[in-house]
């Protein structure tokens, strides 16, 4: 019997995936509501938004140049889609002890400077960012009316230059939801700043060498 338990636990070790990306939500997962402090001093939960048909949950921050580049586009998105039921809810997932530019006080300053029309929330203790699996800023999770994640990734395909945008991933995803469709693509990738927490070093590191499949790197993969 002991032997069976031993082998069972052993097999569990192998089946259980290695700590790859720290978990978090995938498309299709239902998100849990949260309660975080906004820059106006009030607590905000998703349940507060009575008319929302979904949420553009955006992990972003002050210090990251990629976040800054998207501020104006986020403001525009909110102005366009909040009245249609899809407000932007911005969350700063960084630990201000690691990145002082992302402190609550600095968030208030930035929100005033840019006159953010959306909530800009402090993720105290980095709990919500961890629950979502927010790895970087900016990192978008589009949630539908059932609180199910429908899209994860970037805002568009040209962070560096808004005039060069060809694919508006996020906006297309919102429109898809409005039309009762599933966003395609539902995942996109973009360069961003890693989320700053005290134990972020070596996080998700793949330290073992793997056998290289020579052709693997040259195959054009799909965007997922």
């Amino acid at each position, binding site marked *: 019997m002991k032997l069976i338990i031993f082998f069972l636990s052993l097999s569990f070790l192998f089946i259980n995936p290695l700590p790859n990306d720290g978990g978090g939500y995938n498309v299709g997962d239902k998100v849990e509501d949260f309660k975080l402090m906004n820059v106006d001093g009030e607590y905000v939960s998703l349940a507060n938004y009575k008319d929302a048909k979904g949420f553009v949950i955006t992990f972003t921050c002050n210090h990251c140049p990629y976040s800054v580049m998207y501020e104006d586009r986020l403001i525009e998105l909110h102005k366009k889609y909040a009245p249609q039921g899809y407000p932007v809810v911005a969350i700063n997932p960084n630990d201000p002890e690691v990145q002082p530019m992302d402190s609550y006080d600095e968030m208030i300053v930035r929100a005033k400077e840019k006159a953010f029309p959306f909530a800009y929330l402090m993720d105290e203790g980095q709990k919500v960012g961890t629950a979502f699996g927010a790895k970087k800023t900016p990192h978008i999770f589009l949630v539908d009316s059932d609180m199910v994640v429908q899209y994860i990734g970037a805002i568009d395909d040209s962070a560096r230059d808004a005039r060069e945008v060809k694919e508006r991933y996020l906006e297309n995803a919102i429109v898809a939801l409005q039309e009762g469709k599933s966003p395609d693509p539902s995942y996109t*990738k973009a360069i961003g700043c890693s989320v700053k927490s005290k134990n*972020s070093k070596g*996080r998700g*590191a793949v330290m073992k060498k793997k056998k290289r499949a020579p052709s693997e*790197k*040259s195959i054009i993969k799909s965007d997922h």
Partner: protein
Amino acid sequence: MQKYFFILISLFFFTQDLLAQGKVKVYDDYEAFKDLLQTESDSTYVINFWATWCKPCVAELPYFEDLHDHFQHEKVKVILVSLDFKRKIETKLKPFIKKNSLKSEVVVMADPKMNDWIGQVDDDWSGTIPATLVFNKAYYSFTEGEFDSADQLKDLVKQFLN
């Protein structure tokens, strides 16, 4: 006469352009860049994605610079792939390289189609930097996030040398 003048002018701008680029090669297209991620040689390559604006990246650059001395008798090549913006190459990147006397080769990856190429570098890469690829012709490893120490990076590279 006009024709020669024209050639002279274009030659002038061409040279200016080359001088301005200095030793930093700029890749506008992943198709050209991806050759850096493969080898048929006996060398081991350490490719680090970073940017001058990325604090944790800058903090761990000395780990990569250390590799030159530590593995000076081995075939180890370090390439620092900067994701700085093109308009910051002259004002930020080059002064940074000079100030820190970087020994590693620095190139700039400027292909804006990030959603297309990030997954081609490695399927597991979400796009955060720093990120590091170590490979030789038979093996590779991908690390997203910073290393804990210079030794951790050295130990990883060492695995590729046996």
